[in-house]
């Protein structure tokens, strides 16, 4: 983990061919690349086969790797993760898809009581080298339970890494790293920005380490800390603030566990102000951890309380009011102004 500043770019040093890909395509590319390199990599889940996943994140994999490695499973999340644990403990690297994060609860016993604890429970004898991918977050006008952000539950629970890319290049690089990690990784995909932009994504084996945050924008007046689909909102807020001469630094955390505490502390130590942005409800969310961390490590540098711009402590409303629930640029700008006026 970086103890100094967040790394500024994800593009590997070596020159390499790139192609313009959306985030969901980059996710797909990472799986394809991993499967080509390592025959122990498998993809499992609901509708990941001929259908290519409900978001097309596994498109073409079934055709390329066949039904033995791209496995449509019965509709049972605990069964999916549980069997994948058995497979991971006997030589495979399963990449499991949970169709929406709202459906992860039935698998939570397998994830937290088993996948996350197996290495400890066997004193290192068995790892569970498994990735559990899932689209998360709101903004696509989906039905109930299709827009949830439960990252805090997993960040709080020991033994599992939590990764959230916000750009296509990071999605590919982090997913490849996650697949070849020897421990379980929860890989959260911000479905709202699955296709919202295209990036130059390196071909082949592009890796982005799990841990370091990404400095998405430099600034001196305030630090905005975000992940996933909130990163573009934070960047948009920074643009708007810049018009008034306020220079916001934007940290894209990329990994929530292990968290790049060094980068956060370094940045807020400089700016003296911070706003944390996430979609999940506020109370005991990951924002609270970040806020507490900043207070613990930067109290004397803090010029104003750290603000949290988050979802409300309610059920995410159905599509028509979803917009009111989700944090957005203007809400971030308002929080920054409060911070500046403190």
């Amino acid at each position, binding site marked *: 983990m970086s103890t100094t500043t967040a790394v500024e770019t994800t593009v590997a040093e070596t020159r390499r061919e790139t192609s313009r890909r959306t985030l969901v395509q980059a996710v797909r590319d990472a799986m394809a690349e991993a499967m080509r390199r390592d025959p122990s990599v498998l993809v499992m889940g609901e509708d990941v086969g001929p259908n290519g996943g409900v978001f097309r994140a596994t498109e073409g994999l079934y055709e390329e790797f066949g039904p033995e490695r791209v496995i449509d499973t019965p509709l049972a999340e605990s069964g999916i993760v549980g069997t994948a644990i058995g497979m991971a403990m006997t030589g495979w690297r399963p990449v499991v898809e949970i169709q929406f994060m709202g459906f992860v609860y039935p698998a939570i016993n397998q994830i937290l009581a088993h996948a996350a604890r197996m290495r400890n429970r066997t004193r290192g004898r068995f790892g569970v080298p498994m990735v559990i991918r899932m689209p998360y977050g709101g903004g696509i006008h989906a039905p109930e339970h299709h827009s949830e952000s439960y990252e805090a539950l997993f960040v709080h629970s020991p033994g599992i890494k939590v990764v959230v890319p916000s750009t296509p290049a990071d999605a590919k690089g982090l997913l490849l790293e996650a697949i070849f990690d020897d421990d379980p990784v929860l890989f959260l995909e911000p479905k709202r920005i699955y296709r919202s932009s295209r990036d130059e994504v390196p071909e082949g084996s592009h890796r982005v380490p799990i841990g370091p945050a990404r400095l998405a924008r430099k600034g001196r007046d305030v630090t905005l800390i975000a992940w996933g689909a909130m990163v573009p909102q934070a960047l948009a807020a920074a643009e708007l603030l810049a018009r008034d001469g306020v220079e916001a630094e934007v940290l894209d955390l990329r990994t929530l566990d292990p968290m790049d505490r060094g980068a956060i502390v370094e940045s807020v130590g400089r700016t003296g102000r911070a706003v944390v942005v996430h979609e999940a409800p506020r109370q005991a969310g990951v924002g609270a951890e970040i806020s507490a961390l900043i207070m613990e490590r930067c109290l004397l540098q803090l010029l104003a309380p750290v603000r949290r711009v988050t979802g409300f402590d309610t059920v995410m409303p*159905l599509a028509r009011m979803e917009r009111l629930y989700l944090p957005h640029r203007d809400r971030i700008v308002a929080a920054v102004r409060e911070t500046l006026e403190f």
Partner: protein
Amino acid sequence: MPVMTIHEAVTRRLEVLAPDGTVDEALMPQLDREQVETMHRWMLLGRTLDAKAITLQRQGRMGTWASLRGQEAVQVGAVAAMEDDDWLIPAFREHVAMIVRGVPGETLLAYWAGDERGSAFPPGTRVFPVPVPVGSQFPHAAGVGMSLRMRGEQAVAVAFIGDGSTSEGDFHEGMNFAGVFRANTVFIVQNNQWAISVPLSRQTASETLAQRAWGYGFPGIQVDGNDVFAVYAACRGAFERARTGGGPTLIEAVTYRMGDHTTADDASRYRDPEEVASWAQRDPLDRLRRFMEGRGWWDDTRQAAAETAAAEVVEEMVARMMAMEPQPPREIFGHMFARMPEYLEEQASELEREVER
């Protein structure tokens, strides 16, 4: 006798109405013309509503919609066999069943359009809300059936589930509780052969889903799900048994999802058009119409009139749904608890101030 048979389970399938419209008179349930026409009207309502909702969705005036086309007979056969006090615990595709059991069409449409008022069923309606995490309604249904039995109510909890969803642990736990407590619950599997893109063969190695019931100590039966009379007859018997303390039944209704999984899906990616075409031959509405024609109850004029009437009913539902004004932001917070805690009061005010700006 060191190898002994200790259990034998025989699973049967019931069919009443043949594709050509003829019925097995011995098995035909007692239904008069009015009842049959009502069934037809409901089935037609389901089909008409479905087509309309899909159109609305394409026009951007509806959210994701789960089509019920092809499955009208299961839903209508079941609700036709229900009594006033019975409870409906739907999955998510039971639109016409919900409407028949008291959910106004505009309410149902509003739900799928993403409006919170779509969840406000009229007081007293014995219909559970849509449980999005599949299978999770089965324990609820067992609980409702336990509740009815404990109070000695002669009523039944009727629960729906899809074939794919039977793979969830909650299917098992709900069935098992219902068996142990002899709940007044009847479980209906709408086996429409597909769970999004996953065919039944990938869902289970079991020859039928009905036979699972024997593992919980109560009977399972399979019916032709495109045969409204078979569904009705099986339900009637099972509901009666449940109401009178005889315990649960599992009914597997074999049908077919004619449309895409939802408007967000494209079934042509994974389904053989020939399979779809072959099921079109077994259309439940056509079959019932042939039966009515055979009895001399029906002809093209009546059919045309029925279609017009259904279209009018649906148009009215849509109009009422469309007429709904946007809700105030406070609605997000208002129903989290019986009394709103201070922190939600603060958040609601936060949002209100933001919206005013």
